[in-house]
């Protein structure tokens, strides 16, 4: 389920119909981890470690036009991002997953760029959450 926010103190990602998702809903994440900020930091580390292999998988799938592989790779990233409350990444990954599921890869490059952009915005926020300098 995608939650839509009208305002936030953080920058948001927008899709073409004007819906916007928060890049990282820290308040929601803290609810999920029972208020344990250290645990949220640990999760951020795990997520950051996973981004590279998952993006590599998605990039290979896009390059080779492999819809099944794209669906699996995007699905994995979407699940992980949704759990982290990283909604813009989850939404961009879902778009790629839907393309993989349908087998229709028209516009896949644009969707991939959108995902890369969402990750670029998310990454510093996750690094801040880990407490790393």
């Amino acid at each position, binding site marked *: 389920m995608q939650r839509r926010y009208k305002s936030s103190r953080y920058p948001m990602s927008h899709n073409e119909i004007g819906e916007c998702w928060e890049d990282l809903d820290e308040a929601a994440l803290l*609810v*999920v*981890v*029972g208020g*344990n900020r250290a*645990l949220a930091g*640990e*999760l951020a580390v*795990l*997520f950051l*470690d*996973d981004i590279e292999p998952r993006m590599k998988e998605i990039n290979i799938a896009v390059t080779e036009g492999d819809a099944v592989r794209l669906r*699996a790779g995007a*699905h*994995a990233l*979407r*699940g*992980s991002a*949704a*759990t*982290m*409350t990283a909604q813009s990444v989850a939404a961009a990954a879902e778009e790629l997953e839907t393309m993989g599921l349908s087998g229709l890869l028209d516009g896949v490059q644009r969707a991939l760029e959108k995902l890369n952009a969402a990750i670029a915005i998310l990454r510093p926020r996750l690094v801040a959450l880990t407490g790393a300098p």
Partner: protein
Amino acid sequence: MKILVAEDDAVTRKILAVTLERLGWDVVTAKDGEAAWQVFATLKGKDAPELAVLDWMMPGLEGIEICRRLRATPGFELMYVILLTSRGDKQDLSEGLAAGANDYITKPFDPVELEARVRVGVRMVNLQRSLAARVAELEEALGEIRALQGLLPICSYCKKVRNEANYWEQVDSYLLSHSDVKITHGICPNCLEKMMKELDAAPV
């Protein structure tokens, strides 16, 4: 109670494990379906998980396939399984439940919902455990009743009975070893009269 969490995504696996441990359950984790199946194959008795939270889509062995295997494997038919899925489609859910899942949770999960659904599962597991114990008690009792219902050879004179080992034994010892009855010894009026006569007739 031990709970198995099988999830290939490290973030979700960590949150699930920490949340369930915080609620007081003993958690064992598996990073994919094959590792989950190994847990079932190696952990036995008290160490075995009685409830499993399985991700639907995992590389190798998917949660739904583990479900099918569990239902077809003696000793695991009653395992309480919660499928974890990001799918919300009714057709998918019906497929998961038909494969033997008891319940499902959609990702991203709400910790309150997770707790509620796991608690339902724990109640079911405890209920099944208690029912299994009662059935075992009843079967044992039924076995004893059958033993007393069989043909029992008894001596027409001394009233000893012949047991399964072909030994003649007193009726009271036979009943003690073949049923839950407790015996208290006394003297019936006829025997008492006979005994008194014998005592009177005995030389002083």
